[in-house]
């Protein structure tokens, strides 16, 4: 288990109430996992703590082995002086360059490669941003609403592709779609208000793979479980 959060307590400076109170969880097993919860419950805050980008909290985040964690979020931009294709080639490590075309094509970005980032739609921007993260050397990639503004069919195609291409890597997908996390994720961490104990509940998802049918009743049960837990 690469990352273990133990008894995390955190309050934003100047805030009256804590975000986390004795929060404990485990993330980082290979596969596609989710972090789910209502707006403002602290999903991004927890994700940034796990990625080592936010400190000043009480408790411990243990990394049992050297682990490369990347945190991507949906408001990121690419610099404007180069086009999308040039940028991606430039920031991709040599060993992963052979994957560029496959990712660009499966993400539906072939037509965008010669364009400037500012010319793209929000959905295209988020796909481009996610693509460049997937081309890095990572063990755990946190995708904080990385597929926001992307249509449902493309989102599905992208998630299937990620699961197919990176079966040994770990993903933590932050989304507000109950149906999506229930269908695609192996494990769903439902983050709740600090007053609820435990603050985080782990629920098994359907972990659906491309081409495999999903039992509607089971999916609905999972969705209900998530809604009840949140």
């Amino acid at each position, binding site marked *: 288990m690469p990352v273990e959060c133990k008894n995390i307590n955190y309050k934003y400076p100047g805030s009256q109430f804590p975000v986390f109170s004795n929060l404990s969880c485990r993330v980082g097993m290979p596969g596609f996992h989710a972090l789910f919860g209502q707006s403002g419950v602290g999903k991004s805050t927890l994700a940034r703590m796990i*990625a080592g*980008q936010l400190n000043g909290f009480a408790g411990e985040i243990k990394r049992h082995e050297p682990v490369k964690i*990347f*945190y*991507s*979020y949906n*408001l*990121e*931009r*690419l*610099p*404007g*002086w*180069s*086009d*999308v294709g*040039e*940028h991606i080639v430039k*920031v991709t490590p040599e060993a992963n360059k052979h994957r560029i075309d496959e990712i660009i094509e499966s993400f539906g970005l072939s037509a965008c490669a*010669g*364009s*400037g*980032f*500012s*010319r793209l739609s929000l959905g295209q921007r988020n796909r481009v*941003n996610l693509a*460049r*993260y997937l081309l*890095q050397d990572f063990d755990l990639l946190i995708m904080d609403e990385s597929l926001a503004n992307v249509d449902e069919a493309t989102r599905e195609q992208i998630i299937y592709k990620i699961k197919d291409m990176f079966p040994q890597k770990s993903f933590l997908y932050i989304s507000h779609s109950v149906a999506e996390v229930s269908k695609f994720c192996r494990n769903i961490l439902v983050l709740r208000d600090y007053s609820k104990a435990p603050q985080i509940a782990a629920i098994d998802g359907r972990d659906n793979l491309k081409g495999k049918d999903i039992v509607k009743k089971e999916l609905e049960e999972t969705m209900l479980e998530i809604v009840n837990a949140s």
Partner: protein
Amino acid sequence: MLHKRIYQFVIVYFIGLAFLFAVKGIFNLSDYVIPGLSDIYITVTRVFTRYFFDVLNTLSVAIVGHVISIAMATAVGIIGRLSNWMGSLIRTAAFNIQAYPIVAVAPMIFILMGDGLSSRLLIAAMICYFPLLLSFIGILSEPITDIEHFYVHSGRMRWQLEVKIRAFENMNKLITVVAGSATLAMVGTIVSEFIGASAGIGYSIRIALYQSDLSKILVALFLIGIFTSLYLALLELLGSTVSRNWGTHGEKQ
């Protein structure tokens, strides 16, 4: 852009001239205080060529001083953007020193360095350096988180890249600041020439003042305005070219 600046200046200049003539008419002032149109015309024919080259001389010093101050402000701004003690020291020093009027130091510079080119250049550079530096520090120390995040956390961020991102994202602000400080460079050079130099249009204005010859000063002001407008227009053109070429590099479809 160029013709707009010239038009604007000519309009302002002639409004000023009209105001002077109105004052002359209302208070019935003599030609000795405010010269008539014919006197101004005669002065134009006598001093125009000399003043033209004097302004050119002043402008060339102002441009060199401006370029030096831009280079210095960029270099010091890059260090001043840092959040360590060095950056903090530079920011504090820049805020404190810029509060001291350079014109008050100018006589000391002339005493130490004489009335030649170096004194004019130094004063011109110093007058536009501090406003540039403060703006550069402000722009370069402001993180562009949504772009820098990827580079920082993938271990690719270098100081050159950080400066490039921040400069690129604030290109319009930088161009405005650089163009705005061009006027300061021109003012600084003229003031330094007026105080102690023996060349340039500031020096000619000082002589005209001793002679109480307002016509000469009006001719000098006209030429200063035209040349400053030309320089500003040139800078704006340069800025928009840089912005267009750099900024739209990735915009091709």
